[in-house]
């Protein structure tokens, strides 16, 4: 497999992250980093703290301990708006689409940070506002094409099947043209064929746009095939970190997560 | 086909004020039926059309607009609702349809120079307030005895409740009594704190300027706080069976103002025998004939028909009157005792004599008391308060209105 992209420096670094909810320790002293342009997978059994990890990265949760360094800026926690502003986009495990809006509108929301016109201009729908709207629409249509959801463009997402919603959600995250894309089980509820497409798609995004990707996925086939490095969590603790092959060979990981060879 | 004098009825028979609405309009319609049964107004029959307003301004406006042109045009209109009255205040002037507001609405509208089409007949809130102090003064043994007395004004916290304040405040200064103002938030179904305050202040009298459920609750709460009901003097909208019956025993001894003398009158008997016996009665409960609201409705209808008759006198007996002619009739009403007698309503309401300057025509009221069963008049004579005071207020206020609306005051011919 030829690798056109070049994995760069560490762009996101988490040190000693601990997070608990009441008595539940979701994350305990976790450190790991993400390098520019890489595909970084997080795996682990259910309830290991994977989603919580992503929530910490983009500021939905504030860790009690630890430090986050993003592009050289060190901070105790992120906040969601700042994270979005600085190029972190994501999808959610329990689909978090805007149910009452059409597919198109949902994906358009992904571009909101790139919109410049103020609301008065938008109310008048005049000149620049309209131009801007259309320019963004073009971008979004590209994504729609890419994801092959043209036919449901104007359908309210609430009416879509689960799998299609997942795709729309990815589209929304992509629309933000993020630097880091956090994907929480993007392929849950898809069949192999669809997973193949999705993988191809993630690879393409990673390749062509150079987007860094942090991915949670339970399908080991996918994880092993497309990720550059994998971090393994179990009960909120990190039990492995390395290339897919290294992780696969790690006995602790096998015990905790993989069980019988897949 | 339009040989009948048409009157639109903007009634409300559902909702919180339905009891009042059905009683008042029921009385008016009963009287129309009586007139028609007796051959009409010099042969001109009365026709009417009803529209449910739900006491809601915008529905009232719609009803007014819908009905006003029907059957050859409205003779007059009476919404029995301050909100609706305001909503059509400008419209009636434009449409040249006289509007009566019996005992409510703008007190300053009595000035016919500014409000040529509005007739707050018999009496306004200001005159009522003045009469109240007069009555309380008399009761205390003379106006000078009011000095140092404490009077609580317990009022519905709205434009309605605040309306009498200019009068009461002026009189408190003049007679040296202390006026304690205690508002009750709408709708007033809880008044414990107000009555505790009253108990604390221990006033000589309480003026109850209430509306709707507030009245019954006031009486009940007064009872439980041990405040004697005969020291409470209600406004006439707090003085109907609908206010006292729900309060039960608590209402016994309670006094209110009224512009109808409770009792039986020939006209009521006639309504019973000629209308109800013929199955044309408007109230489903016949026993309500002669109740306060019903009598008020009969009174209103009587004044309306009197105005029409007055107009006929000038513009042609037995003819159909236009609304402008009827306006003239209202402005030149003279229902004196003799006339009342022929109408079978001797003393049922004070004599009314209107003019361009005075669209009210009387300003006299009585006090009635609830004996646990029915209302009894406690003042044999009509009481009139300090009309000079109210007149001055009226001039001032209507002048301001005229200025705002850019009206040049003047009498219509």
């Amino acid at each position, binding site marked *: *497999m030829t690798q056109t992209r070049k994995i760069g420096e560490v762009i996101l670094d988490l040190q000693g992250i601990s997070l608990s*909810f009441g008595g*539940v320790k979701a994350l305990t002293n976790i450190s790991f980093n993400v390098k520019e342009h890489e595909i970084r997978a997080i795996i*682990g*059994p*259910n*309830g*290991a703290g*994977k*989603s*919580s990890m992503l929530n910490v990265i983009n500021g939905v949760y504030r860790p009690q301990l630890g430090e986050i360094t993003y592009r050289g800026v060190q901070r105790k926690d992120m906040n969601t708006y700042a994270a979005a502003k600085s190029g972190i986009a994501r999808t959610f*495990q*329990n*689909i978090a689409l805007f149910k009452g809006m059409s597919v198109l509108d949902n994906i358009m929301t992904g571009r909101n940070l790139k919109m410049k016109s103020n609301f008065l201009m938008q109310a008048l729908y005049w000149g620049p506002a309209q131009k801007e709207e259309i320019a963004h629409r073009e971008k979004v249509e590209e994504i729609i094409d890419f994801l*092959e959801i043209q036919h449901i463009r104007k359908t309210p997402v609430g*009416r*879509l*099947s*689960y*799998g*299609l919603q*997942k*795709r729309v959600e990815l589209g929304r995250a992509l629309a933000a043209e993020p630097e880091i894309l956090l994907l929480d*089980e993007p392929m*849950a*509820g*898809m*069949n*192999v*064929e*669809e*997973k*193949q*497409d999705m*993988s*191809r*798609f993630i*690879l393409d995004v990673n390749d062509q746009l150079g987007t860094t990707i942090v991915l949670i996925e*339970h*399908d*080991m*086939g*996918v994880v092993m*095939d*497309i990720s550059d490095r994998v971090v393994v969590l179990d009960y909120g603790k990190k039990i492995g970190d390395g290339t897919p092959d290294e992780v696969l060979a790690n006995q602790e990981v096998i015990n905790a*997560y*993989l*069980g*019988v060879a*897949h | 086909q339009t040989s009948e004098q048409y009157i639109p009825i903007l009634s409300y028979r559902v909702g919180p004020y339905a009891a009042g609405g059905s009683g008042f309009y029921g009385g008016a319609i009963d009287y129309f039926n009586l007139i028609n049964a007796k051959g009409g107004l010099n042969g001109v029959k009365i026709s009417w059309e009803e529209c449910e307003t739900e006491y809601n301004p915008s529905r009232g406006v719609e009803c007014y607009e819908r009905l006003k042109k029907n059957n050859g045009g409205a003779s007059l209109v009476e919404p029995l609702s301050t909100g609706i009255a305001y909503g059509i205040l400008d419209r009636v002037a434009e449409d040249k349809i006289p509007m009566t507001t019996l005992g409510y609405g703008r007190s300053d509208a009595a000035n016919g120079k500014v409000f040529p089409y509005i007739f707050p007949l018999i009496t306004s809130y200001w005159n009522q307030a003045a009469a109240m102090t007069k009555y309380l003064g008399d009761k205390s043994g003379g106006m000078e005895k009011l000095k140092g007395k404490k009077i609580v004004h317990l009022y519905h916290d709205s434009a309605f409740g605040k309306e009498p304040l200019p009068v009461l405040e002026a009189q408190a200064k003049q007679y040296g009594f202390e006026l304690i103002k205690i508002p009750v938030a709408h709708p007033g179904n809880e008044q414990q704190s107000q009555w505790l305050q009253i108990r604390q202040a221990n006033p000589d009298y309480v003026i109850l300027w209430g509306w709707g459920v507030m009245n019954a609750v006031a009486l009940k709460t007064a009872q439980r706080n041990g405040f004697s009901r005969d020291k409470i003097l209600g406004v006439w909208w707090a003085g109907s069976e609908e206010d006292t019956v729900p309060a039960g025993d608590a209402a016994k001894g309670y006094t209110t103002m009224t512009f109808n003398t409770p009792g039986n009158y020939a006209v009521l008997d006639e309504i019973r025998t000629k209308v109800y016996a013929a199955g044309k009665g408007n109230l489903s409960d016949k026993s309500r004939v002669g109740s306060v609201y019903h009598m008020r409705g009969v009174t209103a209808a009587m004044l309306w028909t009197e105005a029409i008759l007055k107009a006929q006198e000038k513009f042609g007996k037995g003819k159909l009157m236009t609304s402008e002619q009827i306006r003239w009739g209202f402005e030149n009403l003279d229902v004196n005792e003799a006339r009342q007698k022929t109408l079978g309503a001797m003393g049922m309401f004070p004599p009314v004599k209107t003019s361009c300057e005075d669209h009210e025509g009387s300003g006299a009221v009585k006090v009635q008391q609830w004996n646990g069963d029915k209302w009894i008049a406690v003042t044999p004579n009509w009481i009139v308060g300090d009309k000079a005071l109210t007149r001055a207020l009226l001039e001032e206020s209507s002048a301001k209105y005229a200025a705002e609306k850019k009206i040049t005051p003047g009498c219509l011919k």
Partner: protein
Amino acid sequence: MTSPTVANFSNASPAAPATPAYLSVNNIEVIYDHVILVLKGISLQVPQGKIVALLGANGAGKSTTLKAISTLLRNERGDITKGDISFKGQRVDHLTPNELVKRGLSQVMEGRHCFAHLSIEENLLTGAYTRQISRAELKESLEMVYHYFPRLRQRRSSLAGYTSGGEQQMCAIGRALMAKPSMILLDEPSMGIAPQLVEEIFEIVKSLNVKENVSFLLAEQNTNTALRYADFGYILENGRVVMEGDAKDLAANEDVKEFYLGVSSAGRKSFREMKFYRRRKRWLA
């Protein structure tokens, strides 16, 4: 690309399962919102004591089919406009879900649907609502679920709304088990579940199936595993059944291998090596 051999395919394999149908869906048509036609005549049978898999791409109509059976469709403004459904030989399409559960048919809905404000244990307990049982029996059922999903025991007292996706999925499955149904409709049970647990869930399915004679109709995307455990399979596409047959036959079919199992004659391809999007070349548009 293989030509669409749909029609003959079903002829080639035993067209209908030999045992009399426990659940049978006859030619149903479903319309959402009075206008959106989603199922265009679906028929399928689940024999007693068998596991039947319902496969198909996103939006093919799997969940809709399951909801049609459990009559939950009604509340999503969907209507069965044609066809009928019978369970244990009786028409059930007019029943309420409660009556269905009482008759032994439970559904695990797609997308978890746990009661967020109830704790995990309370969630499980609601599952036994229809059963008139003693405390001890209840406890026993609860223990059984905890036995299957030890993770749930740990989180038993936390509000379901605050548990992880996988924990919620376990909770949803466990909740359905609490009703002791004789037939379960499972909508994507493996979604969001860690691999070893996926196997476990299917093992649970199998053992319930074998030991307690529970029948299953399961909609699954994890075709591989599903076909391994199922007896029979249906493949849906665009609201129609395009293929049906014994699970083994299906698993051996070239088209199925290619599209649903991700293996071609050349063996399994790496996800990284897929050079093009396959959906572009769908055999049935």
